[in-house]
């Protein structure tokens, strides 16, 4: 059986020392091993940006696509081969700016993949511009007077879109993050895991210390029930989205693959490409 070391490769990440994404990389490697995967059974599809490079830093199948489009690519991979474990990954710009449309529709479509967002509230690879997750007043190269646009409340957005698995974590908490990714992989449907992953170079506001001070663990909220959608919504609003842990899970809802009419129970990639003569003749006759 594979261990997390089997998911390591020899590529040195081009992330800055101290970047939160290193922990996310480690957590994915550990979670993959913990759920019993072999490296070839995992496909990681990532977007563009610092965090988008993650698919190249893990020993598994990896597809580094285009900005904002990790999710449709990942859904295509899963539809083609339902036996593969598919993880999509990227940053907050990827998932909540250029790719927001895909995020919302991937959530409501509920194809069985796991989406991990490395959320640092800033654009790093382009050297420090505002993100849709930046707070009002946040000064960046593109908002020198401070951002006037409110930050997107993505966890509430996910719940509104019909999410069946919503979790949030902090890159410093490797244990919780690993466990949430494992649960996300095991969840039968679309799982969204937003990870606060600080940018040590361009974000001097939302630092490790800032997150430590402001994040509230759901474990500390007495009676919190992740199967209760109302409670999830209210808790998020009360804490301005700054909570960590499993926020909401609907274990009853079937995945897209299990609902869609006629879709093969065995991986579609194994289907016979040749139409039988009988089937062909029947299709042709319908046009006569």
């Amino acid at each position, binding site marked *: 059986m594979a261990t997390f070391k089997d998911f*390591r*490769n*020899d*590529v040195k990440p081009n992330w800055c020392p101290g970047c939160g994404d290193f922990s996310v990389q480690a957590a994915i490697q550990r979670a993959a091993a913990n759920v019993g995967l*072999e*490296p*070839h*059974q995992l*496909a990681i*599809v990532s977007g563009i940006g610092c965090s988008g490079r993650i*698919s*190249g830093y893990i*020993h*598994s*199948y*990896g*597809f*580094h*696509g*285009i900005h904002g*489009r990790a*999710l*449709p*690519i*990942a*859904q*295509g*991979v*899963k*539809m*083609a*081969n339902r*036996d*593969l474990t598919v993880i999509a990954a990227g940053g907050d710009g990827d998932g909540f700016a250029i790719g927001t*449309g*895909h995020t*919302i*529709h991937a959530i409501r*479509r509920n194809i069985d993949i796991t989406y991990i967002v490395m959320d640092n509230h800033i654009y790093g690879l382009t050297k420090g511009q505002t993100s849709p997750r930046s707070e009002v007043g946040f000064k960046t190269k593109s908002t020198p007077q401070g951002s006037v646009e409110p930050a997107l409340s993505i966890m509430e957005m996910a719940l509104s879109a019909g999410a069946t698995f919503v979790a949030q974590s902090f890159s410093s908490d490797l244990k919780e993050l690993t466990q949430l990714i494992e649960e996300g992989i095991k969840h039968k449907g679309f799982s969204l895991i937003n990870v606060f992953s600080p940018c040590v170079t361009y974000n001097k506001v939302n630092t490790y210390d800032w997150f430590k001070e402001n994040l509230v663990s759901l474990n500390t909220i007495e009676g919190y029930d992740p199967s209760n959608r109302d409670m999830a919504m209210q808790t998020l609003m009360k804490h301005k989205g700054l909570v960590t842990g499993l926020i909401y899970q609907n274990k009853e809802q079937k995945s897209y693959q299990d609902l*869609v*009419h*006629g*879709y*093969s129970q*065995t*991986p*579609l*990639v194994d*289907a016979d*490409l*040749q*139409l039988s*003569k009988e089937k*062909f*003749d029947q*299709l*042709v006759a319908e*046009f*006569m």
Partner: protein
Amino acid sequence: MISQLSWKVGGQQGEGIESTGEIFSIALNRLGYYLYGYRHFSSRIKGGHTNNKIRVSTTQVRSVADDLDILVAFDQETIDFNFHELRDGGIVLADAKFNPTIPEGSNVTLYAVPFTDIATNLGTSLMKNMVAVGASSAVLDLDIDVYQEVVEEIFGRKGQQVVEKNMEALRAGAQFMKEQLGDSIQTMKLEKADGKKRMFMIGNDAIALGALAGGARFMAAYPITPASEIMEYLIKKLPSLGGAVIQTEDEIAACTMAIGANYAGVRTLTASAGPGLSLMMEAIGLAGMTETPVVIVNTQRGGPSTGLPTKQEQSDLMAMIYGTHGEIPKIVIAPSTVQEAFYDTVEAFNLAEEYQCPVIVLSDLQLSLGKQTVEPLEYDKIEIRRGKLVTGELPALPDKENFKRYEVTEDGISPRVLPGTPNGIHHVTGVEHAETGKPSESAANRIAQMDKRLRKLKHLKFNTPVHKQVKHEEADVLLVGFNSTRGAIEEAMERLELDGLKVNHAHIRLVHPFPTEEMLPLVQTAKKIIVVEQNATGQLASLLKMNVGHADKISTILKYDGNPFLPNEVYTKCKELL
């Protein structure tokens, strides 16, 4: 007796104009006639003039007719809008209800037939279409019984009584018309057809059927005119093969989802029109760079922007060939008949996997929506070829080394392994990469990988890249076109030949990579080249000049008013140029 007839039915959109044409043409198709139907419609659901022009012939026809023999009108607007198409001696069958009039002094006969009244008397005014078909059939001297089968298929599930009522409406229309016509009944009697059963379908049907036969088991698409029929057909058929269609949130998702599924090994297509293709351009570059097969159908319509969404045009040619930033290998195939649309779609999936690149099946609205009689499609011609797809077990790689997915090879094509395969792990990225897929910015690697990718199509094998009608070693004129203009060009060519001109015709089926070797001798042996195309800038003519030269001999006949070329337009403009 006539061997060919042009019939048009028109009225307000939403009042059954399409089904009137359908019933008439399906019945005639089953009698063995060759049909060619073209619909004029607008981007709205109810209201606005719409018409369906159907050509009936005892031989294959692939063009809208120059003129009109019979016009069936449900309103005065239909007469006003279409009257100019009627030939001398043509007739108008109009609903008496609106007191139809035709311009004075014309050699056209108007018959006011109480379509609505007859139908209402039989039970419901909805059957006025049937009365009109019956009246038309009387003019052609067709036996009403030919409709029995079709009417049963359409109305059978509503009960035998509905079938009977509709047959009655057909007979009543025919009876009324016979009395009106009296002795002149023989003038438009149709010659008997061969009685052979042939397919009757639109180009989009053939593309969708071609996708099934070509092994496509998944589709991701976003609705758009004139492409949606492809998705709608596959939604009906793919589940029976275990496959699926996802209607995505936009065309970017459609194309990238198709790329993801192809990467994972399932033959997947997307289909759209110009606006959708514009959105897919970045993804097409990704497929080119990552060497992922993908088949994309573009059913061209009037551009730019929203343009003329329900009208014919061929103005996406350059965008399809050169679209996406940077330089990638890409194949663009432009079928010109429904048969070709079927075979080319099958082949597109083979080429995409063999050459590991995006393949665009380029259609146009006239081909995609024009409904025509099709000679049998041959099952034995369908083949599945998957190129350098690695199947079976792979040897273990030394200590986590990646599989060389982008190995530099002589033909530029590298072995392709699907995710999930043990010992095949590699990276895929739109960033320039080394043989293992890992990003690399080294100058030497860049050149090696660029050259490798672009080398793949140097020896592209494609059966019949140019459809040629070459009767003359030396021609006065070579007519060149692509997609659905073929029928109009062929008919114009016949008329020019009757005038004593030596005419050759080349219809380009593989538009990219350009078939220079095939085209050069044809261009060299013609005194003049006329490129007939439906755009305002002469895109195919530019391609021809770029690839074969002889710019001084090349001129164009262009049309971009949204309507298909008529044979006579091509003929007349050729005469002006020669």
